[in-house]
């Protein structure tokens, strides 16, 4: 739209014609109060708080619905306008409890702010206010009816934003109320319930304290919490979240998560897991002391010193006696990049083994290799919100990548994006799709071939060949495409799809994985045949820059065993030690524990999982909310993780790895190159100036020690030291440090070396199980999710109503 100029309060403002006055004013620094208006949701004009005076128009106009045109003149704070707003507030407050001192929203409440601003607190009513009991709609959503000002934000965010339609208005007039979708008379406890995705978006958008969060309510006041901006640990979307933390006797407790400042890649979204499922941290089942298996077979709590010494000694002994080749290492999908990097470096340079892998939830090796040699072809999560056309093949973002699903829905709704979906299942996002193609079972490879022009693949690809053909036509007619690929595609079929996509000029890609740092685990080289940055392992060539890492590590030059092979080795008695950091492969891969009875098993874990239960040594680990570092989401968006919670007795995996190395007699300075520049490999130690406040404690200590010419002993546990090395050595990780430390995300493309011998692909093609999508739903989160009481509780409130195809009419308004 062409720009027009309007005058607001005497100030000339230029903006595109048709923009909403309220937004135009906001960007010009003129604040207009609004209850019902919420950016991105449909317009209501219901609260009448945004009224302004427009020249030559008889009635006050609502700024939230006024589209600007050339030459209009507005006044936003005349006495008349102020009086109108004040009166509206007075009418509203007549029935509002004004119980701010005990209200969860107190201090963050838009009504409270307004009342203060317009001086409307004095009530002229003599009638008693309506009182009603607070209602528990689900373990996480509570409703306090008298506080509700009927702005309908919750109803809209649930219908338009979430596509769930679990909230509505019932009755009319002053009896109107927001209700959930299961009425009291249909529940055993005779209380109304919510059958929904439990995302809590409704709570987040509620301008007052009418909707409150079960995990947060009455626990604390906003100004008594620490607010820590970090990244959700659950799925591969890696939402930015701000955690509210309060201190407790044995550390601290996270009481809420939200993303109200909309600063992250996830715009204003968090799903139920991101918003509530941090309670596992405070689970009573948490391991808080190292455990060592006794001769009688029992695990006994011991001191850290004893446990570490035991592990260090045994690892060194087995390496030296039976060789690094007999040791297997499995890393996790929720470690930080620094930890994952450190773990593989430790394995390769200290344990002298390439037998390292992780539970791969998506085939990033094939993904990276398919994109080798291209630039700018990897998409950020942000692009799911802006791409004009999106092709989604496989996957079920609604369940597995909820932020992706939110963005896609928003993109379709707000920008009219075209969404093409090809799936073997009727996934929910098809409701937003301009075309949905039912793919035949195991048909993704054929689909990719067909898309690329191989018509003979048609009958394997999809049952409906006409639909298939028109689907291809629609996609080919797009000028640029964002291709989102579910993790059910891997190996050769993944490559085929990407190869096809690469023929369309502006196409970008993303492969959706399952956990907060699944992508980082692969990027950081938790792989038997790849060093960090998908650098293939092979003979060292001192002239070849891709040999740099191997040169520095002095690690074995032949690929190691992958996860499945490690277990095969155990079965044949060729695995002397098994080191698992933050993973539960025994349960994941249904491994018979007996396989490992002659193997020395060390597990770093939060809980006594199936894998921890068979360990010889269990080392209590901190979770992602209890440490600092960085993670990379499915899309390659790198974000900073900051320490929010704390639990006495546990240690970060980073620290534990370093301590084990130390106990093994390794040169810790080589492992974590911290210290003066003269030390290992030209580290740019920055003495803490650029590191966020979170690592402050360690840094201050280190700075003081260095200044006093003492050895900075705490420093090896500072992840930013290893980040220097990642930045220096790992292809694709040319990070903007300041960007990271100021809490902004940055997008990284995988930078695989061109495929030498198709090794990666062949390997996956033959061994599909190596990539094992977790298949989590909205209410599960791998092994971790089992220890979240709230997730277990919520599962009972998940949406049960079958998806209903609503009239296009309803869906669009």
């Amino acid at each position, binding site marked *: 739209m062409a720009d027009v100029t309007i005058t607001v309060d005497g100030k000339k403002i230029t903006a595109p014609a048709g923009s909403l006055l309220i937004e135009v004013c906001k960007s010009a620094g003129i604040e207009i109060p609004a209850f019902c208006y919420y950016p991105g949701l449909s*317009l*209501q*004009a*219901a*609260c*009448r*708080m945004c*009224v302004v005076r427009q020249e030559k128009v*008889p*009635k*006050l106009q609502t700024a939230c*619905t006024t589209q600007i045109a050339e030459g209009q003149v507005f006044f936003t704070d005349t006495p008349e306008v102020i*009086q*109108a707003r004040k*009166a*509206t507030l007075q*009418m*509203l407050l*007549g*029935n509002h409890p004004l119980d701010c001192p005990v209200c969860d929203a107190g201090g963050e409440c838009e009504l409270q702010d307004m009342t203060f601003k317009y001086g409307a607190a004095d009530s*002229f*009513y*003599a*009638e008693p206010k309506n009182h009603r009991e607070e209602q528990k709609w689900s373990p996480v959503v509570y409703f306090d009816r008298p506080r509700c*000002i*009927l702005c309908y934000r919750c109803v809209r965010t649930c219908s338009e934003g979430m596509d769930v339609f679990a909230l509505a*208005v*019932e*009755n*009319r*007039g*002053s*009896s*109107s109320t927001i209700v959930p979708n299961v009425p009291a008379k249909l529940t055993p406890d005779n209380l109304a319930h919510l059958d929904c995705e439990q995302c809590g978006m409704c709570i987040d958008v509620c301008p007052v304290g009418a909707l409150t969060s079960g995990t947060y309510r009455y626990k604390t006041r906003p100004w008594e919490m620490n607010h820590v901006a970090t990244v959700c640990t659950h799925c591969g979307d890696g939402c930015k979240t701000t955690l509210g933390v309060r201190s407790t006797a044995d550390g601290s407790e996270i009481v809420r998560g939200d993303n109200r400042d909309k600063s992250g890649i996830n715009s204003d979204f968090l799903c139920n897991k991101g918003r509530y499922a941090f309670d596992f941290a405070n689970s009573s089942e948490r391991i808080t002391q190292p455990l060592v298996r006794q001769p009688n077979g029992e695990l006994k709590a011991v001191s850290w010193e004893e446990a570490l010494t035991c592990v260090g000694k045994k690892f060194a002994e087995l390496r030296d006696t039976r060789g690094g080749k007999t040791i297997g290492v499995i890393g996790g999908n929720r470690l930080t990049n620094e930890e994952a990097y450190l773990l593989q470096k430790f394995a390769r340079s200290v344990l002298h083994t390439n037998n390292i892998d992780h539970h791969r939830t998506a085939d990033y090796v094939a993904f990276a290799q398919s994109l080798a040699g291209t630039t700018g072809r990897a998409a950020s999560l942000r692009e799911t919100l802006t791409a004009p056309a999106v092709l989604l093949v496989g996957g079920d973002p609604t369940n597995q990548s909820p932020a992706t699903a939110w963005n896609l829905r928003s993109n379709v709704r707000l920008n009219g994006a075209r969404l093409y979906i090809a799936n073997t299942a009727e996934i929910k996002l098809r409701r937003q799709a301009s075309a949905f193609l039912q793919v035949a079972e195991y048909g993704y490879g054929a689909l990719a071939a067909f898309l690329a022009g191989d018509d003979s693949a048609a009958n394997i690809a999809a049952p409906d060949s006409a639909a298939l053909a028109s689907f291809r036509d629609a996609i080919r007619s797009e000028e640029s495409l964002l291709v989102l690929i579910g993790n059910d595609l891997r190996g050769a079929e993944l490559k085929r799809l990407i190869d096809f996509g690469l023929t369309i000029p502006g196409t970008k890609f993303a492969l959706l994985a399952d956990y907060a740092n699944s992508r980082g685990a692969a990027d950081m080289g938790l792989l038997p045949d790849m060093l960090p940055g998908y650098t293939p392992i092979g003979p060292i060539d001192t002239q070849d820059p891709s040999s740099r890492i191997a040169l520095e590590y002095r690690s074995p030059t032949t690929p190691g065993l992958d996860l499945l092979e490690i277990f095969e080795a155990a079965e044949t008695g060729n695995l002397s030690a098994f080191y698992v950091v933050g993973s539960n492969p025994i349960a994941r891969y249904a491994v018979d524990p007996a396989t490992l009875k002659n193997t020395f098993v060390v597990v770093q874990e939060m809980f006594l999982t199936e894998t921890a239960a068979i360990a010889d040594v269990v080392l209590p680990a901190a979770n992602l909310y209890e440490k600092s570092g960085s993670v990379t989401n499915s899309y390659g968006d790198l974000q900073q993780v900051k320490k929010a919670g704390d639990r006495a007795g546990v240690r970060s995996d980073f620290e534990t790895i370093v301590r084990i190395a130390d106990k093994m007699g390794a040169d810790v300075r080589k492992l974590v190159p911290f210290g003066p520049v003269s030390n290992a490999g030209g580290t740019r130690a920055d003495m803490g100036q650029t590191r966020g406040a979170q690592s402050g404690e360690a840094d201050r200590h280190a700075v003081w020690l260095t200044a006093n010419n003492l050895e900075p002993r705490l420093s090896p546990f500072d992840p930013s030291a290893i980040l220097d090395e990642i930045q220096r050595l790992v292809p694709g990780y040319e990070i903007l440090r300041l960007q990271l430390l100021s809490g902004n995300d940055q997008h990284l493309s995988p930078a695989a070396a061109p495929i030498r011998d198709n090794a990666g692909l062949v390997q996956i093609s033959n061994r599909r199980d190596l990539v094992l999508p977790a298949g989590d739903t909205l209410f599960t989160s791998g092994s971790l999710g089992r220890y979240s009481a709230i997730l277990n509780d919520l599962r009972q409130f998940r949406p049960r109503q079958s998806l209903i195809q609503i009239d296009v*009419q309803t869906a669009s308004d």
Partner: protein
Amino acid sequence: MPRLVSHPDEVIVLKRRFGQGAAKIDRYIELDGYAAVQKAIAQGAEAMPGWIIDTMKSSGLRGRGGAGFPTGMKWSFVPKTSAKPKYVLVNGDESEPGTCKDHLIFREDPHAVIEGAMIAGLAIGAKTGFIYLRGEYRTLLEIMERAVADAYAKGFLGKNIFGSGLDFDIITQTGAGAYEVGEESALMESLEGKRGVPRIRPPFPAVVGLYDGPTIINNAETIANVPHILLMGGEAYAALGTERNGGTRLFGISGHVERPGVYELPMGYSLRRAIYEVAGGVRGGKQLKAVVPGGASCPVLRADEIDIGLDFDQLAKAGSMLGSGGIVVLDETVSIVEFALRTIQFYQHESCGWCIPCREGTDWIKKTLTRVYEGGGAKKDIDTVQYIAENMMGRTFCPFGDAAAMPTLGFVKKFRKEFEDYIEGKKAGTALMPEERDLIGVGH
């Protein structure tokens, strides 16, 4: 059922077929039925829409639903071409207290509504008309349904109407009890199966209406007038009324008069004569106290304000409205405090609740007036009521807020002394409400 009444001063246009069995299609045809639509079609496909709209414009007909918008002009706003189908929507929600004229039309002359809707459809190029009746009018809906079925049976509705090559279908619809649904955009929502909450305007229904298609919405009486106007000619119809207020209109006179009833009087007819001559004067020879001139939403007139002609402009000038033409007459025995309370009870009950000033304002006025009525009032309560009403005016999402605030302001401004006296214990009039009242509440 409203009984048929007559008076020599009446000028009969719309009532021409009343009381003559015109609900039967054959009888309707005998009485010139379906002649108007054929006359329109006879103009030829090219000329017809313009001819109809010009005739409507020249008739000076203004909407009979309340707002008095010139009908011909409304129709001319509909875009000639549209990607989405266009619709005609007949508003028979008639729920304004004091109004029962559409009731009579549906019962006595249902085919006039059908024929009028057809003509409106021809004028704007719509192929479908909806006739929406309030839920309480089930018996009338059945009459309408029968009439529609008869018209189909005769081939008047459906494909190729009267050989014009044009199609027109009519669908009848029932509401289920909601005054606000009479508001045109809430009416469309209700017809689309939703809560009767109004829509944001612009866009106006003439451009984006029912099912997003261009839609004209007219009151049933407005529509029923259309065939008559086409037959008699726009100018002839206009000449019956006053300047800018063409023709005649059905006035329902109720309350304290000797002969209440629905009378067809020319626009501009004297209010005094309507009360004292047409309706036989104040019941029992009592003194007149006040008149609500056009349904409950219109500010009250005092007894000394009735020398006024009944048209949209004269009443607007007097600070009231002609509204739906429901004249409610109050004699000296009425307590204005009580009457004001009963009026706001209605609005509080019927507010859709969408916007704050109306939802909360009607509730607080009702609560405050209830307390005053029950003897617990203070003088500042009158100011409070006035303050709330003044701050509802022009601030709400739809005109309902004004419709609730205007009469309230009328009562407290014109009868402030009576409110003050009441609060001091000097109650005027005889109470009509029983002492033990339970107020109607919505919700289940």
